[in-house]
């Protein structure tokens, strides 16, 4: 019955609809609310922010020079040990360098290599994934072949060999790691691209005659973005861990640069009597990687929690 007929028959107007239909909150508001209540995200973001600030402002935060050796000040324990003092909060290492200072400058190395390698790997992997997923067929076969080759190669051994050949600077390590860890990007990007490609709005764009590049960048890429961020955070963590391992073995960052992995290696000689030399940088690596992983997980939850159980 239309409202006209209702009025004609003299039926009383209905009581107003109950206020169940509030205006739906915008996606941005939803995300902000989720972000502020997600413990993993907050933890990760805080640590990351703190680490970045420490890395950037390291020279201002400490009076010491990370490279300055003072053999008269060797192996002073941290402040919480018996012979420790507030002059050297984390003590000094075998060469008399202040440990906290080296830790702070080491953050620069870890973050630089982490971001750098993840970016390079992300660029390579995402491009390959988009191409393979979008074009399919023989192109896709080539992409998958490349991925299979990459997966078959033992990453750590290859990295060691390459660094032996090219030397251990921050640049070379970043490049080597970037060129070795793109496979996960490809797999995820390719799969999402395949799904997106058959979606109607892509077909519509193609029908209108939009160039392929435009479709890939304009339609497909935004869909993939969420996944890429999560993978990037994962790979950044991996890059930091691998760099630390390589430096530990001596085929990564060369001394006297304060890579955290290198610090663990240098501390190994004194490990049994001054365990803090090994413990402190390791904890730093551990905490940073956890933070990055939780940040990535948090971003995924915040932007698309439907996929989560």
């Amino acid at each position: 019955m239309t409202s006209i007929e209702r009025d004609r028959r003299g039926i009383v107007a209905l009581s107003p609809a109950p206020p169940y239909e509030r205006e739906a909150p915008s996606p941005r508001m939803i995300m902000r609310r989720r972000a502020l209540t997600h413990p993993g995200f907050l933890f990760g973001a805080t640590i990351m922010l703190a680490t970045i600030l420490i890395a950037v402002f390291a020279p201002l935060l400490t009076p010491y020079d990370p490279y300055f050796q003072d053999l008269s000040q060797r192996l002073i324990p941290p402040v919480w040990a018996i012979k420790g003092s507030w002059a050297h909060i984390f003590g000094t290492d075998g060469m008399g360098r202040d440990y906290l200072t080296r830790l702070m400058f080491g953050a620069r190395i870890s973050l630089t290599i982490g971001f750098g390698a993840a970016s390079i790997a992300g660029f390579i992997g995402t491009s390959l994934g988009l191409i393979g997923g979008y074009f399919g067929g023989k192109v896709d076969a080539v992409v998958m072949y490349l991925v299979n080759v990459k997966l078959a190669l033992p990453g750590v051994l290859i990295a060691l060999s390459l660094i032996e050949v090219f030397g251990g600077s921050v640049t070379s390590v970043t490049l080597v790691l970037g060129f070795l860890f793109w496979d996960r990007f490809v797999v995820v990007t390719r799969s999402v691209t395949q799904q997106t490609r058959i979606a109607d709005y892509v077909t519509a764009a193609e029908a209108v005659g939009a160039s392929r590049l435009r479709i890939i960048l304009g339609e497909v890429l935004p869909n993939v973005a969420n996944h890429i961020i999560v993978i990037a955070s994962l790979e950044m963590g991996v890059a930091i861990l691998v760099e630390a391992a390589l430096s530990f073995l001596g085929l990564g960052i060369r001394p006297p640069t304060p890579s955290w992995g290198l610090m663990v290696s240098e501390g190994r000689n004194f490990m049994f009597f001054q365990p803090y030399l090994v413990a402190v940088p390791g904890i730093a690596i551990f905490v940073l990687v956890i933070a990055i992983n939780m940040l990535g997980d948090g971003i995924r939850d915040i932007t698309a929690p439907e996929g989560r159980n």
Partner: protein
Amino acid sequence: MTQAKSTAAFEEVLRVEGLSVEIGISTGLLRAVSGIDLHVGRGETLCIVGESGCGKTMTSLGIIGLLPRRARLTAERLVLEGRDLLALSPKQRAALRGDRMAMIFQDPMTSLNPVYTIGNQMEEIFLRHGKGDRKAARARAEYLLHKVGISAAASRLGQYPHQLSGGLRQRAMIAMTLMCDPTLIIADEPTTALDVTIQAQILHLLHDLQREYRMALILITHDLGIVARMATRVVVMYAGQVVETGTAAEVFAAPMHPYTRGLLDCIPIPGKTARGAQLGSIPGMVPALLGPIASCQFRNRCPQAFADCAAAPVPLRETAPGRTSRCLLTPASLVPQRAESLGAAE
């Protein structure tokens, strides 16, 4: 369809009284089902009709005992073949499932385990309920596959679900429910996922099986066409409540609740609906199912709502044995329905 007999003529299999299902969600307690009464007897087909979200699936899951973890069932009575289901432990309930009462689900592709053969999945019910040994299970499975119209039954037993077409899979599922000869079968939208041509076949099959085995059948659907074909009796649900019951003939010939009438108005009848005539529609949306019921749940969409509808919850009124309606309007005050509404199912 045969003229509906009164319910007393059917030996009662299931009696449900005051069944409610509540689900705890972040914003409160969702009343998926509120105070449902229903009953069904041998050889009788009870159709539960309603739109998505009206509680019909939750009702069936509540009866069979498969509610999700967060859902809570309360009922005054829940009796199957004289057994009080509420007094049973979960283990005892499980012993009845598949044996005395069985369920057919909507999508046969996802409802069958892809890594086991049809035969394996059929035989396991038989074996689980101790009806016999492996050989007897196999023999019965083959017999039932044949019964539901699947040729080459013996070889089908060794096939996997993905190797059968949609219609065959649903037939196999029906055969599966019959393995232990249950007295009650609940079919939740059994044809919705199938092609239209196959739908009729499956319904026909269910009808024939019922005539032969005389089990009680609860058929859940949103499709009034299916109700017209299959139902002995009808229960119309809305927002978790029963709003109308009666035999199929009664409900189609003279629907009493405005919701039922609205549903019937929406259907075009070939031969009766004039070309170009406007189909009816029910404006508005189902209300949120939170908080206690304080008024008629349909009033915001009802063309004949008046002041009293908002004042208090509306009781279910029985105008004749087995004929109820949850509406304050008397049959006399109901606005005449459109001329093209569905006639008595015959």
